[in-house]
C-alpha cells in the first residue's frame, strides 16, 4: 500500500451514537434524531412508505441481499388476515457480529424501524426473535421496548396516528438453523426449528399461516434514517445497485478488529489499512467476505468491491459482511474441518443431503487433517459437497459446501501436503492471540 486510506471513507450512521452516554436509552436516542423517521413515516400513506424504501434501494443485510421494500410489497393487502413483522435477530453465522453490538448499543433504532415497517405492511403485532445466548442484549431490548411503550411509540394509537402495534421480544434457545426465516417461524410457533417447504412463501403464509415479513436487524435499523433523511441522501452512499451504508465486521488476525461502517463497495484493502493491517509480521492467507457460508477469498481478492455485485462477480457472496481474516499461520484444513463440524452439529436433520452429507464431510476432513486420508478423499469430499449444495432443503446445506469448494479451489496443495506430511504441518500455537503478543514483545 503506497497511499494511506482516507478515514473519511468511513460513514458512521447506525454506529454514530455508540460513543455517547448511555446510547441504549431513549433520551440519548432522541438527541440523535431518534423517532424522527417514524413521525415522517406516519404522516405518509403506507404504500408511500414502502415505495420510499424501494426507491432507496435498501437490500437485506442478513445475507441474501433481497430488496427490503420489495419484500414489504409482497404482503397482500386487504386480505382480512392479520399480518406479522418478524425481526430476525438470531445472529449466528460464524464470523457475524454486527447485529449484536448494534442492539446492545442502540436498541431503539431497531424498534423505530420495526414500527415503521409494521406500519407499512399493516401489521399490528411484531416480534423480535433474538438468539438466546446474548442476555445483555436481551436486557437492553426488553428495557427499550418498555421505554417505547411508555413514550407512546408502541401500543394503541402510536403517536396519535390511529395505528396500533404490539411488539414482543422473544428469546430463542440455541439453534443456528433458526436464522433461516422459515425455521425461525416454526421456532416462533413453539416447534423444532426446521425450515418449511416453499411455496407458500412467508409473505403469503408465514407466522400462523398469515402474511409475514421477516427482516434482518440491520435492514430494519437502516429504515429510520432513510425515512428521516430521504432517498437521495441514502443513495449518496454506495453504488447504483448496492446503495447505502453498512456495518463491516473485521475479526481475526487484524490489528484492530471491530465494526467499520462504510458505504457498500469499499474494499478489504481499504478497511485493512484503516484497521492497521494484518497483525505484525504476518500476511493474509484467506478470508471470508460474509461469514463461513460465503466462499473464502485469498490475498488476490483485496480489491474486490465489497458490495452485492462485486463479491458475487468474484465468486462469493457479500453475506453478512463478516470479514474473518486468517494469516499464514492458520491451517486451512483445520479451519474448514471446524466449520464443517459446526454445520453437522447445526443441521436440523430434516433433509437427507444435509443431515448425512455434513456427517460424512466431517469424517473425511478429520482423517485428512490427521494425514490419514488419501488423494481419492479429496474427490469424495467434492462429490459429497456437490450432493449437498443446491440439493438440500435450505441454505444451510449450501453454506456447508462453500468452505469445502473454495478451500479446495485455492488451497488444494495444502490438503495434499497433509497427505505427504502424514499429518498437519501447522503449529496451532502460532495462530493464537498470545503468540502474536509474544512476537510483538520480541520485536
Amino acid at each position, binding site marked *: 500500500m503506497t497511499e494511506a486510506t482516507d478515514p473519511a471513507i468511513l460513514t458512521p450512521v447506525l454506529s454514530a451514537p455508540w460513543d455517547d452516554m448511555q446510547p441504549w436509552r431513549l433520551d440519548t436516542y432522541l438527541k440523535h434524531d431518534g423517532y424522527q423517521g417514524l413521525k415522517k413515516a406516519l404522516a405518509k400513506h403506507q404504500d408511500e412508505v414502502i415505495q420510499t424504501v424501494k426507491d432507496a434501494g435498501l437490500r437485506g443485510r442478513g445475507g441474501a441481499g433481497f430488496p427490503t421494500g420489495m419484500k414489504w410489497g409482497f404482503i397482500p393487502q386487504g386480505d382480512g388476515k392479520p399480518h406479522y413483522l418478524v425481526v430476525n435477530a438470531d445472529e449466528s453465522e460464524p464470523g457475524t457480529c454486527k447485529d449484536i453490538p448494534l442492539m446492545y448499543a442502540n436498541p431503539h433504532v431497531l424498534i423505530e424501524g420495526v414500527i415503521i415497517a409494521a406500519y407499512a405492511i399493516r401489521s399490528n403485532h411484531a416480534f423480535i426473535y433474538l438468539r438466546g445466548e446474548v442476555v445483555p442484549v436481551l436486557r437492553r431490548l426488553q428495557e427499550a421496548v418498555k421505554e417505547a411503550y411508555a413514550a407512546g411509540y408502541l401500543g394503541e394509537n402510536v403517536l396519535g396516528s390511529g395505528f396500533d402495534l404490539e411488539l414482543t421480544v422473544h428469546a*430463542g434457545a440455541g439453534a443456528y438453523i433458526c436464522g433461516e426465516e422459515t425455521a425461525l417461524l416454526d421456532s416462533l410457533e413453539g416447534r423444532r426449528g426446521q425450515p418449511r417447504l416453499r411455496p407458500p412463501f412467508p409473505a403469503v403464509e408465514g407466522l400462523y399461516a398469515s402474511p409475514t415479513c421477516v427482516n434482518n436487524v440491520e435492514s430494519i435499523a437502516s429504515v429510520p434514517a432513510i425515512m428521516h433523511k430521504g432517498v437521495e441522501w441514502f443513495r449518496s452512499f454506495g453504488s447504483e445497485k448496492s446503495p447505502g451504508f453498512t456495518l463491516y465486521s473485521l475479526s481475526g488476525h487484524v490489528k484492530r478488529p471491530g465494526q467499520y461502517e462504510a458505504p457498500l463497495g469499499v474494499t478489504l484493502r481499504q478497511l485493512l489499512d484503516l484497521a492497521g493491517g494484518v497483525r505484525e509480521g504476518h500476511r493474509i492467507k484467506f478470508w471470508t467476505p460474509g461469514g463461513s457460508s460465503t466462499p473464502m477469498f485469498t490475498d488476490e481478492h483485496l480489491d474486490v468491491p465489497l458490495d452485492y455485485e462485486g463479491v458475487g462477480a468474484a465468486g462469493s457472496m457479500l453475506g453478512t459482511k463478516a470479514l474473518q481474516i486468517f494469516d499464514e499461520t492458520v491451517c486451512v484444513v483445520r479451519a474448514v474441518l471446524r466449520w464443517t463440524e459446526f454445520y453437522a452439529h447445526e443441521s436440523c436433520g430434516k433433509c437427507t443431503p444435509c443431515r448425512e452429507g455434513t456427517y460424512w464431510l466431517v469424517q473425511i476432513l478429520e482423517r485428512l487433517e490427521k494425514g490419514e486420508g488419501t488423494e481419492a478423499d479429496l474427490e469424495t469430499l467434492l462429490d459429497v459437497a456437490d450432493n449437498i449444495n443446491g440439493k438440500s432443503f435450505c441454505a444451510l446445506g449450501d453454506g456447508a459446501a462453500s468452505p469445502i469448494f473454495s478451500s479446495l479451489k485455492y488451497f488444494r496443495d495444502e490438503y495434499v501436503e497433509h497427505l505427504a506430511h502424514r499429518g498437519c504441518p501447522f503449529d496451532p500455537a502460532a495462530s493464537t492471540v498470545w503468540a502474536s503478543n509474544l512476537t510483538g514483545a520480541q520485536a
Partner: protein
Amino acid sequence: MTDLGMPRLPAPGYPADVRARLETDARELIGRYPQSRSALLPLLHLVQAEEGYVSPSGIEFCAEMLGLTTADVTGVATFYTMYRRQNGGDFHVGVCTNTLCAVMGGDEIFATLKDHLGVGNKGTTPDGSVTLEHIECNAACDYAPVVMVNWEFFDNATPASAKDLVDELRAGKQVSPTRGAPLCTFKETSRILAGFPDPRAEAVDQGGAGGTPSLVGLRIAKGQDPDAPATTQTGKGA
C-alpha cells in the same frame, strides 16, 4: 425389578405453591402471543429457571399449560442447545471453539479449563458451581477468543484469564463480564430469557455500550484514538 434408569412416568408434579406461582408466570407469557404454543420456548426457559434444567416435571407442566403432549414438548426441548437435560452448575461457562475463536486461542482455553476443572465437555465441577461446555459462534468475533458465562460476554479471553474467572466463580465471588451486568446464577438468567426482565433495576445500564472493537470504526472516522479503552461510557455520566 431391574432399574433401567428410565424416567418414572407420569413425572411428579410441582408442589402446590410452586405450581401456583409458575402458572401465574406461564399465563403472563402465553398472553403475549396470538397463539399459545408460541410461548413454549419461553415456558421451557421458565421451568429451567425453576429447577436449573428441563426436568420431566417441567415438561409435563409446559404440556399441561399449552395443551400439548409431553412427547411434543420433549421433541422441542431436545432440539435446542440451551435447554439442559440434567442439572448443572450455577454458572454455565461456554468457550467458543468455532473456527475463528478456536484459531485465536479458544481451543487452548477450552483445553486449559478442562484440565484445570477436571471435567470434560458438559461436565460439572463436584461443588456444583461450574458447568463447562464448548459453544458455537456467539456473535462476538471481533472480541475473539470469547468465553460466555451464563450468556454474558467475557471478551478477549486468555487461558490465564479463563482460569482466574472459574476460580472466582467457584470461590463465590461476584464477577462482572466485559460487556453486560454482573453475573447472576443460571436459574436467574433463565428467568430473564423466559421474558421476565432482570429484577436488578441497575443491570440494564451496566457494562457500557461496547468495547474498543465496537467503537473502532466510529473513532477512526472522528479522528480519535482508535485504541483508547472504551471506559467513558460505562454507567451514568461516568
